[in-house]
């Protein structure tokens, strides 16, 4: 099971990894992205969803998404090959 799948994600943005005991907080955008990642959505699909739901341009959404994914990788929550 990948790290994203095993995470316990609360509606208030508190994220707990049961395998490592680490916890994180994400804002509503982060929560939105995490949930889409769990559904197996691709990078393009997530960018589209961000543009649709938040007032951002395609470029801004992609940049922020890549930044967020990188943070997930740094924290060992996403493998290099994911997304």
């Amino acid at each position, binding site marked *: 099971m990948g790290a994203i799948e095993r995470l316990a994600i609360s509606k208030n943005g508190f994220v707990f990894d*049961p395998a*490592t*005991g680490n916890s994180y907080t994400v804002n509503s955008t982060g929560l939105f992205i995490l949930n889409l990642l769990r559904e197996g959505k691709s990078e393009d699909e997530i960018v589209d969803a961000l543009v649709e739901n938040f007032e951002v341009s395609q470029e801004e959404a992609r940049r922020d998404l890549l930044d967020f994914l990188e943070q997930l990788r740094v924290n*060992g929550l996403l493998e290099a090959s994911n997304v």
Partner: protein
Amino acid sequence: MYKVAVSGINAVDNPGPGVGVAKSIKQGDLEVKVFGLAYDAMEPGIYMDWLIDRSFLMPYPSKGEEPFLQRLFYIKERYGLDVVIPNLDAELPLFIKAQKELSSFGIKTFLPTEEQFKLRSKGELPKIAEEVGLKVPKTITVTSYEDFVKAVNEIGFPLMVKGVFYEAYKAFNISQATAYFNTLVSKWGYPVIVQEVVSGEEMNVVGVGDGEGGHFGLVAIKKLWITSLGKIWTGITVKNEKLLQAAQSFVSAFKWRGGFEVESIVSENEVYLIEINPRFPAWVYFATGVGINLPLRLLKAALGMEPERDWEYEAGKLYVRFTDDFITDMDKFQEVIVNGEA
């Protein structure tokens, strides 16, 4: 009514497991009277009469087996004693060696064999790790200053300097390492263990082996907040499959009997074995609190009953230790000082 003695009732800043064990067995479905075995009249457990019904001062195990066992036989004769659950490293060799003799006097234990006990000593750890398919930080056991310097040069900084029973320090340079080495030698004697530092999440597992390769439950935790002595103050239950699998392999490979604690460092793809303690950790009540009453299960096993084996617990349960205080009369203190029991 079962009469059960527990040691390690020193609920201080470096707490023994006794109070957690007493609290656990009192919460179980057996009717028990708990006797505390103490080494000092100031051990807080003596005064915690809601958990410990009567306490006895014990001679130090270093004074020899005879006076120690005589004290236990006295308790048995005078008050009745069914089971002893020893919780301190320094007394375990004595209990393990004497388990048959104790049993012949009707005092039951549930302990590893001498061979198992020796196997998990810090110096032997690489062998266990290999057997159960875990990694182990490079470890060198030294018995002289010359060997120590050689070991330090081989491992490089930072490194851990550890006493054979107690205490571990992280050293970043030779003067620090030498100071820790000298402290440990003067306090605990040889050998001293020099160990590579590995990075990752520090996680521990508590469990009870059934002596036949199975177990009566495992609970894995991560320390979130520790004291300056490295003792857990806040922790969280985790479910790390690799670590739990390793703990099961350890139990089955060595047919471990009794309580134990596996200390490990889990990095992304590896589990490093740091230490195996042949007893419950001081935070053992954490397991009880998440529904796996390991001390009670050990007690049942010692009594020849078949304990529960389920160990489904929730990850993300928080352990919170706190300081508390209470006031009591001086009577009990006086009795302990004068009579050695109260």
